């Protein structure tokens, strides 16, 4: 059936879009999106905060159509929504905070390659259909099913561009290390989604210094700044490391765990520089970290509680000494296996 411009305008008028045009979710397109699933379209996958909206398969498929997804993308989206709705992920807080964050979606394993996802040049940027439409579909589900609409239940003061779409896969071909799902105990031939409550990426350059310490010291210093939610909550810290950085580190004989340990040891902030900065003055009795009250002003406070709370993913093109730091919040990431 032919779609006209007026159909796209209708979707805008009904408040269904993220501001960009969407594919109108006609019954034919939604049925096609659901063709590969045997489950009842009315079956409920999960409830999405903040309004506890009922995420039925059919509604999820309608949002997937609007975002530009293909039917083979649907299992990824469904698994990502289930993971997002898990109580441990604190999606309610992520969607309703005045802070500027949203779930970042990483797809790992062979399915990412089958779907032709991009973990190479411009991995976190525009240009790849699966990355763009999967990230966008997730965001549209939060908006349309969960009710997290800007100015309504999504009150983010500034927001960030990843709220349109924030999805990538790792560069498994050029990475010297295992993909994240293997590191987290899944079989190499399994595929997973991982969601992380994410600020916009801060891209750090460290060029021309072919040793791990030089690279990681710069990353540690750029990460250890007051005013981020990590500096206050000491939650998980997520990195997107270019293949060049990862290979310099690996070729010097360092494992990924060695790199995490270095960041734990060096990404530290002086206690006296934290006590009246960032979120500290704002904290209530529950949130105020007891370790800060106990610390001496010159104590160096690690940015994460333990080295394994640093997550390193490897993505991006073959050339360029960059690592993007993605600050998070209190909750950490969640990984779930995709069932096809």
């Amino acid at each position, binding site marked *: 059936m032919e779609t006209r411009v007026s159909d796209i305008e209708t979707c805008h008028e009904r408040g269904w879009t993220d501001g960009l045009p969407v594919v109108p979710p006609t019954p034919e397109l939604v049925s096609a999106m659901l063709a590969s699933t045997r489950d009842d379209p009315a079956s409920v996958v999960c409830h999405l905060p903040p309004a*506890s909206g009922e995420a039925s398969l059919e509604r999820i498929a*309608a949002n997937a159509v609007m975002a530009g997804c293909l039917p083979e993308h649907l299992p990824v989206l469904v698994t990502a929504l289930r993971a997002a709705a898990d109580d441990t992920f604190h999606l309610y807080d992520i969607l309703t905070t005045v802070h500027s964050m949203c779930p970042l979606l990483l797809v790992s394993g062979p399915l990412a390659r089958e779907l032709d996802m991009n973990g190479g040049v411009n991995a976190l940027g525009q240009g790849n259909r699966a990355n763009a439409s999967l990230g966008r579909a997730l965001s549209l589900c939060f908006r349309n099913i969960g009710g997290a609409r800007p100015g309504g239940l999504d009150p983010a003061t500034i927001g960030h561009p990843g709220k349109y779409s924030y999805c990538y896969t790792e560069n498994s071909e050029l990475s010297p290390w295992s993909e994240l799902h293997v590191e987290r105990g899944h079989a190499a031939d399994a595929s997973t989604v991982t969601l992380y409550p994410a600020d916009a990426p801060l891209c750090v350059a460290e060029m021309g210094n072919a040793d791990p310490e030089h690279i990681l010291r710069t990353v540690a210093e750029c990460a250890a700044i007051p005013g981020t939610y990590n500096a206050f909550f000491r939650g998980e810290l997520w990195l997107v490391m270019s293949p060049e950085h990862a290979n310099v580190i690996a070729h010097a004989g360092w494992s990924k765990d060695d790199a995490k340990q270095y960041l734990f040891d060096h990404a530290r902030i002086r206690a006296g520089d934290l006590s009246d900065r960032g979120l500290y003055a704002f904290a*209530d009795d529950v949130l105020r970290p007891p370790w800060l009250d106990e610390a001496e002003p010159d104590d160096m406070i690690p940015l994460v509680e333990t080295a394994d709370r640093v997550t390193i993913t490897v993505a991006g093109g073959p050339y360029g000494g960059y690592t993007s730091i993605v600050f998070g919040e209190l909750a950490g990431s969640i990984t779930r296996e995709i069932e096809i």
Partner: protein
Amino acid sequence: MDYVSPFDEQSREAEPLAPRASSLDGARIALLDISKRRGEEFLDHLEARLRSAGAQVRRYRKPTFARPAPHDLIEEIARDANLVVEALAD
């Protein structure tokens, strides 16, 4: 053209406001502090004014503004009060 709605229509509907109280005289009012900065100050002023208007006032406090109120606290307020004022945000 027909579309499949991407909305949960229920989540789209705003909750209707409760009927406005006709009088404060003898009303049992819960003042809920969500533990956000300066909420207490606001509620102190409100409490003084409500008391002078003849209301009974009790103060409640969420452990942290960063999480929904505990179920027990909501139950307690629902049991004890017939009006609630929440000092939301800063």
